[in-house]
């Protein structure tokens, strides 16, 4: 047993922490989140220069990391500072490109890692909730090999600013059949692709995307047409792990801020942290956060080793993150009182992100159901 990180990962952690401390005040985060594209292109370039975008991908794909614990170290750090730059979108889209891309398609990955181009995954649909196989968007191929896409994609992370989109579409089968789903690498400016970008409640950006007869030639197909589900699942697994780690980071900052407040805020002539009712509620948060940290280790380890129970471990982690994230969000606000309800005070923004992370890639209920269905004793193949 060894619960320490490698030297390289500790370095990654320190680099990120130092950079964010010196360059990422909350005021700047708000400023970027409020305007299009919802983050700073300049900061994104600097993240890339520091190798932090490369940390999302394996060496064979031109990156510096890409394994389970590379992702958790990186995203935990991002979560601590509530970073709004498009790391999740890049991970989701980029890992599919890395996994399935032809050498030519993969050349785009190099530009992504350098921070010059942005990619996202346009997979979710208005009716799909969190069911990964629910794809109603259609892809039809004519006799000349040209593909035509029709349909709608919902809440695509940073879909409004991505230069390229990886779009899923059904080639054959029923609407919820895992078989028959294809992936396409589509330039955002392609004719017939409409985007409606918007801000999300927690400071991010996303887009609704309409595909109205988008015409693509054969080279746009990513991987074997109709057999993309496994790769999709793998990319979403990575994204799930990343979100869990981001949540852990945000939980830590939220509780750090709260501890400081409990020690300094005075009422009835004493620091409110002296009241047992508040102490116990605070301590409960710390206990639950340690549980999240442990389950994140379980999940990252199972992803890194491609363990047979990895889907159970990931769903367990996302469920726990959903449950504890909400608890931390609500309790840290409550422990503060009115001040935490203000926009000006940082805590509320962590609370918002913690609650809303539950709405990405499957919520508390969805993943509990997954765990119940999968069963700890009947590992996935």
């Amino acid at each position, binding site marked *: 047993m*060894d*619960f320490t990180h490698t030297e390289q990962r500790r370095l990654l952690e320190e680099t990120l922490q130092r950079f964010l401390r010196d360059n990422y005040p909350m005021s700047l985060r708000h400023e970027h989140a409020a305007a299009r594209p919802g983050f700073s292109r300049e900061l994104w370039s600097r993240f890339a220069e520091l190798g932090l975008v490369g940390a999302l991908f394996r060496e064979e794909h031109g990156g510096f990391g890409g394994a389970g614990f590379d992702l958790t170290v990186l995203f935990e750090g991002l979560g601590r500072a509530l970073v709004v730059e498009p790391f999740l979108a890049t991970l989701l889209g980029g890992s599919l490109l890395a996994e399935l891309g032809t050498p030519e398609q993969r050349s785009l990955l190099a530009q992504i890692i350098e921070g010059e181009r942005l990619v996202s995954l346009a997979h979710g649909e208005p009716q799909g909730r969190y069911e990964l196989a629910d794809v109603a968007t259609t892809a039809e191929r004519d006799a000349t090999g040209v593909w035509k896409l029709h349909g709608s994609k919902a809440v695509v992370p940073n879909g409004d600013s991505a230069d390229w989109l990886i779009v899923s579409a059904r080639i054959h089968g029923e609407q919820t059949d895992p078989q028959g789903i294809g992936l396409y690498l589509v330039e955002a400016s392609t004719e017939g692709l409409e985007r409606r970008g918007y801000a999300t409640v927690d400071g991010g950006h996303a887009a609704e995307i309409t595909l109205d007869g988008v015409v693509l030639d054969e080279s746009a197909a990513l991987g074997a047409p109709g057999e993309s589900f496994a790769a999709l699942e793998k990319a979403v697994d990575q994204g799930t792990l990343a979100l869990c780690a981001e949540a852990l980071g945000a939980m830590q900052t939220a509780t750090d801020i709260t501890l400081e407040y409990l020690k300094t805020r005075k009422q009835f002539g004493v620091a409110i942290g002296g009241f047992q009712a508040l*102490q116990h509620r605070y301590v409960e948060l710390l206990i639950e956060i340690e549980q999240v940290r*442990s*389950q994140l280790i379980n999940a990252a380890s199972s992803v890194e080793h491609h363990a047979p129970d990895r889907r159970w471990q990931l769903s*367990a982690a996302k469920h726990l993150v959903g449950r504890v994230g909400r608890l931390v969000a609500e309790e840290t606000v409550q422990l503060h009182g009115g001040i935490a309800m203000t926009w000006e005070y940082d805590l509320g923004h962590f609370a918002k992100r913690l609650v809303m992370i539950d709405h990405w890639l499957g919520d508390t209920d969805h993943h*509990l159901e997954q*765990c119940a269905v999968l069963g700890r004793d009947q590992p996935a193949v």
Partner: protein
Amino acid sequence: MDLSYNPEERAFRDEVRTFLQDHLDSRLRERVRSGQRLTKADYETWHALLNSRGWLAVTWPPEYGGTGWNAVQRHIFEEECCAAGAPRIVPFGVSMLGPVLIRFGSPAQREFYLPRILDGTDWWCQGYSEPGAGSDLASLRTRAVRDGDHYVVSGQKTWTTLGQHANRIFCLVRTATAGKPQEGISFLLIDMRSPGIEVRPIVLLDGEHEVNEVFFDNVRVPVENLVGEENAGWTYAKYLLTHERTGIAGVGFSTSALAELKRIARAQRKNGRPLADDPYFAARIARVEIDLEAMKTTNLRMIAAAAQGSAPGVESSMLKIKGTVIRQEINDLARRALGPYALPFVSEALDAGHNETAIGPDFANPLASQYFNNRKLSIYGGSNEIQKNIIAKTLGL
């Protein structure tokens, strides 16, 4: 990051597993698994078996007859014992008093008492709590007044677990009343056969006689039975508590209990199908299973830290809280899984040799009773609320 055991640890695990397979009596194993009552002789047989292999005192150094195992080995041993359906090791002599004597006892005390713990000559019990001193243990009032070569002890101890089997009791007693309450406490070893001691059973809400009250009426205790220094007993008591809390997460117990819960849920029916397939019940099992899976790793993280030499701190408080809540939740689900058959209770069926046909499913009888019994988990060993106070204090609140 590596969550797996190394080759030596795996070899050790196999060694323990094989030993238990070969030597743990299958009838005893079955009685533990089915939640039957264990007798004094059952515990003594189990201790003797471990002692014959040199595996009884897992926290003691080898020079005193202990195993000298590190935290990882102790964890593996505990895991294997639970998985094999072994009884628990009665902790009072081996896990609690032993380490205190090794650390603070006189050479004569170590030489006399430690071998007797190992060979089963002595069965110790713990004299800490009093009717007026529960969570506020330092307010204890049982007095020990020096009279020549003796202390004269008067007062009352309570919640004395398995005191009915014990021939000796280690007690916290008040030897001074000036200053802070913690500063006037001493640690005394007392022979239960001394004149003036009376043990009265306390029957708990599950109907079982597990704990006792112990009354002391001018009991004369030789001064050489004082451990360490007079009025320094609180320090020793706190040291003992840290030992009481190793393994506090109860991972092994929860793991076995969860496996049993799943067996029950597969055997019980709802609408003609296994209860385990009911989405609502399956979700409840999944939820506690997730909590347990996370806690196992929290426990391993603490064990890895302990094996590196760091002292248990707030982590043991966290594990105590989380571990007991999880065990209680599993007990609750097992009770619910039975439906109406949680109600019948035949006390005699908990005894060895009972062979009447069970009422309802044959696993049902002890489960509601166990649920009630295990409400104690979040109360004893420093209640979960006290643990939260401890954590809050270390945070500077």
